[in-house]
């Protein structure tokens, strides 16, 4: 909604969309960059050239048809299970927080955490290979011990936005959570 350019930890551009449905309900949608047509063409031509080379060696047409089938099935599996199109966070004051990731094929995976289980939302640091990255996470209350944290749920795990984007989300979430 604003002009500031957001990127993820690898430098690829992402977009943040922010909708304020009411004073205690907001929705954040972080969209990852789409698969570029160039990558798709390079990958498929690589597979098919390789298959054609094998066909020239072995003279068996089954190689060509199996390469086509493998490419198609691979692409279908990729867009249905691997490639995430956008991730959204819906914060509803005094009800809970809903995380949802939707894949490139349209499949959506949603999970809802109710407010009484949430202890806090924090920005945490992590050492990821050779980098130190920031990530936003929800701390869940331990049912046995009120002051302890039982587990951590990271938000936006595939888009991995950078700190400027996280701070914006963090501020709005804290407003809503502290009010209710």
């Amino acid at each position, binding site marked *: 909604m604003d002009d500031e350019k957001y990127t993820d930890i690898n430098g690829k551009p992402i977009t943040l969309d922010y909708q304020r*449905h*009411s*004073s*205690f*309900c907001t*929705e954040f949608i972080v969209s990852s960059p789409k698969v570029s047509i160039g990558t798709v063409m390079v990958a498929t031509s690589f597979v098919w050239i390789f298959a054609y080379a094998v066909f020239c060696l072995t003279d068996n047409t089954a190689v060509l048809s199996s390469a086509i089938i493998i490419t198609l099935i691979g692409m279908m599996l990729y867009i249905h299970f691997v490639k995430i199109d956008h991730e959204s966070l*819906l914060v*509803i*004051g*005094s*009800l*809970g927080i*809903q*995380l*949802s990731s939707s894949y490139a094929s349209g499949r959506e995976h*949603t*999970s*809802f*955490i*109710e*407010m*009484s*289980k949430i202890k806090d939302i924090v920005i945490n640091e992590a050492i990821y290979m050779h980098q130190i990255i920031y990530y936003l996470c*929800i701390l*869940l209350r331990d049912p046995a011990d009120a002051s302890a*944290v*039982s*587990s*951590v*749920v*990271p938000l936006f*795990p595939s888009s991995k936005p950078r700190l400027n984007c996280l701070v914006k989300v963090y501020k709005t979430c804290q407003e809503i959570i502290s009010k*209710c």
Partner: protein
Amino acid sequence: MVLKVFFPQCCNRAASGLLVGRWLPGRDTAVVLAVIHYPFIPSTVKQYLQKVQAQSQVPVEVLGSWSMPSEKQEGLDSFLRDLRTIFPQGRWLQVSREVGKTGFSCQLLPLALGEGGGGEKDRVIFVHYDQRKVMVSQLHPLERPQPRPTRRKPQNSDRPSHAVSVVSAVLSYRLCPLRKANVLVSVLLDVFLGLLFISWLYREQRLARLASALMPAADRVSKELQELLQWLMGAPAGLKMNRALDQVLGRFFLYHIHLWISYLRLLAPFLEVILWYGGLSAALGLTFALSLLSDMLALLTFHIYCFYVYGARLYCMKLYGLCSLWRLFRGRKWNVLRQRVDSCCYDLDQLFIGTLLFTILLFLLPTTALYYLVFTMLRLMVVALQGMLHLSVDLINSFPVFALGLRVFTPYRLAEGVKFRVLSDEPGTALHLLMEMNALGFGSVVQTYRTPTYSCYPPDSWGALLRKLFVGELVFPWKRKTTKTD
């Protein structure tokens, strides 16, 4: 605090009347179960609610009033407000809907009568839910305790599920019927697959061809084994074996194979009949045919099993002897009483004989080890084949086909939790959310509804198995934990 009202979708167009439902204690939440619309007699309503409460054990009460203005009923608002005096409750909810707008407006009248009206108009959430789907669905809260702080799939909510359980308290669906349905459907699928198999097998004389091909196959296996033994008796892979031991072992095993072939030749005329009746057992289910096949495989490869046992025993004894004599070399002895190794003073002739035996055993070790290795490999191949058959039998028996079908066609019945969607909101009205059942993932469905089978899985882990093979201990892949060994 934000007031939450759970409103069934079927009541969106109900005529004006009374809201009936339940207040969730201490949570500022109201669950509307039904709308009783005008005309009604308040005393009849009270009696009816008491009856429902007695039968269902759920404290159902009048929550407030619902007004949907239409041309026929004018002036109903004041009537509905006066109803509050007839149904004295703690809080009274006034929900109204205007013809032009899609949103509802809500007013909460507080505890004491006589205080002015006007609750907090802008902090109300209306959660719409499909009553039929919510009542029919079963919740599967995923409990996966893991050490903190690690990534974990977020657990699903309690509060909407509390509302759901309140709403579905009228009809309680338990988990049992689904598991029974799974077992029944698995059995039917099994029988169907078995009949399909029979219709394929008994056509075009396939069975006769199979029976007539079985004898030559067994013959070929024996011939291959004989060639293998001849190879071992020579110089296998360039290794030089001990001639005498080699000949003894080789001839012993060859004679065994000869006995086996004679036994099979005796059986040959009856083979077709046996196969014919055995194939009919597939009518009871494909798993029967597969188990029968596994048993037949075990019978036909019985000689390989025998060879493995002979080889393993020889190897095992040799290793024990070697260990014991090695201790003698170092002047030690195994103390059986104390289960430990103690030092011991040996006589000269004991040492002499011990050293001789040790040398003999050591130089005969490669021969025995090679025979053991070859027959263990063969035995493991047979066990692997049998294992695959057992696994497929297990799969057919335990796979929850019915639950998966339910998940595909009516996903709201198997729910992992709930999910919310914001309905298009207009400024000035309360927030409207749509609550839908979040269907369980396919992997979780299979995991939760897998029928437990009583197949015996191998009791050893991979490490224990390798250790047993190295030492020469006999490996029993289908041993149940309850039976005694050997």
